[in-house]
């Protein structure tokens, strides 16, 4: 009982990365510090097209608060966001719009495909629906579900946080990343 009390009273802080600490200083590599800062302040761009968008509204609500993961400010402008959350079916007519939004985002950027329709076309195997957004943009995390529960969306966000926290500083300039962009014909 008293231990619980202690846990409630003392605020929890994030785990520090590996490093050397001493009297009044803590030294770690730049990558890890930047990763820690980035992963706890990912600003999402909610690209909500259909039903998964309503589950996202529930995730943003007070019950399954997404803001406690650092995604406090939703920006609808691609220039000011880090994480593109594509939620819902993307039709072929919408594909060029999605590509434009992705291209306008500044590096580093991550993409999370929420829902079955964004991951692979979902239940709509038709002539007008794009069978997965990874046909036009590179995707980092796929969250399955139709629609996924808010807990699953938060789990997807936590996986993006893992990716962002452990990313090498040179990744966006590496040959592998350039090949990936070339594959999608994004300059």
């Amino acid at each position: 009982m008293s231990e619980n009390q202690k846990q409630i009273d003392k605020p929890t802080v994030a785990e520090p990365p590996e490093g050397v600490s001493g009297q009044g200083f803590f030294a770690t590599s730049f990558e890890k510090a930047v990763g820690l800062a980035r992963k706890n302040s990912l600003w999402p761009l909610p690209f909500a097209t259909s039903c998964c968008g309503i589950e996202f509204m529930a995730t943003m609500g007070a019950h399954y608060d997404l803001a406690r993961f650092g995604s406090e400010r939703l920006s609808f402008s691609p220039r000011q966001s880090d994480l593109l959350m594509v939620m819902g079916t993307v039709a072929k007519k919408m594909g060029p719009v999605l590509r434009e939004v992705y291209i306008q985002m500044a590096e580093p950027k991550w993409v999370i495909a929420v829902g079955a329709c964004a991951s692979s076309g979902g239940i709509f195997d038709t002539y007008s629906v794009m069978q997965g957004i990874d046909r036009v943009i590179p995707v980092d995390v796929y969250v399955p579900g139709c629609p996924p529960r808010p807990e699953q969306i938060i789990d997807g966000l936590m996986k993006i946080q893992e990716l962002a926290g452990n990313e090498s500083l040179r990744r966006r300039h590496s040959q592998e990343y350039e090949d990936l962009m070339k594959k999608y014909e994004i300059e």
Partner: protein
Amino acid sequence: MAIDLDTDYWDKDVVRSEEPKEYNTLNVGPTHPATHGVFQNVMLMDGEFIVSTEQTIGYIHRAFEKIAERRPFYQITPLTDRLNYCSSPINNMGWHMTVEKLLGIETPKRVDYLRIVIMELARIADHIICNSVIGVDSGALTGFTYIFQDREYIYEIYEEICGARLTTNMGRIGGFERNFSDKAWTKIRHFLKTFPAHLKEFETLLARNRIFMDRTINVGPFPADRALAYGFTGPNLRACGVDYDVRVMNPYCSYEEFDFIVPIGQNGDTYDRFMVRQEEMKQSMHIIEQAIAKLDKMEDKETYYASDPRFVLPPKEKVYNNMEALIWHFKIVMGETDIPVGEVYHCVEAANGELGFYLVSDGGRTPSRLHFRRPCFIFYQAYPEMVKGNMLSDAILTMSSMNVIAGELDA
């Protein structure tokens, strides 16, 4: 307020220049925080006022009508879920009633009352979204966070009944898949007790708020005769002053036994649409209370499906224990039943208006043609006429108060 761009002018002392006006084009959408869904408006603007707007939809066209020609009747229910996904159970029940009309199945009274409870809960859920989002679009974000808690509660009720939160796929042709559990009834009664206070709290934030009233009164008004000519139904039409409600005019599912008011507005502006939806939520609560009272009075507390073995899937306990139920289950799923040839049109009062299903069957396992009469698709046509001459921020509020859902717009 709308102004006449040729004659009205703000400051009568200013000399109007003789140069021709220059209009500029503004592209609103398809990805835009205020459009709830993906549709595009290219607006021709004279400064802050809108001269005309050109709409493009189809950014989420998923070809429901084509898919429906390939699926047996019970597999089309998940498709109907995704029409107006904010209130999926109404779409599900409407579809089941259409098929029951074609097959000639009579549902028992208890199933009707259970359906009414669920449909009214779904109507409340949809109106919660619409009204809170009108607040968000005019800058009042608090109401959204407060009232969404009740939507979470309605999700919990859905989960008790069918297992899913949003796209429910609820019910079967002829009834439900299982009886409502005691936990579901506890939750429904708890909701009825606590929701009126929350709704009152939400209403005090907005309904008599000076800023909200200034932003919504006389914004996007629409006369009743134009609304009828444009095919408006539902709260948008009732805000214009026409009291057309499918539940009253062509009652289905025993609605004629219930006593409720149909609220109407005066001039069809945004404030009227907001207040009509508020009042409809209260009337839905009243209907649910009456339905629960009727259900409590009935002695039979076990029936939850119509007893027509040719078309109604038997419950799983019977299928695993009883030979006839197993055979009927096999026949229905494999498509060996004799579906009658014919065509029916059935409509329900969805949260946005009259949601109709036109089903043509040629005797096969799948429909020959299924057409959805989608209210959003029909009333969104009138949007250019509603916003002509208004300012951009008023146009955004008009769009959000009409409750256009992209899934229903494009299907």
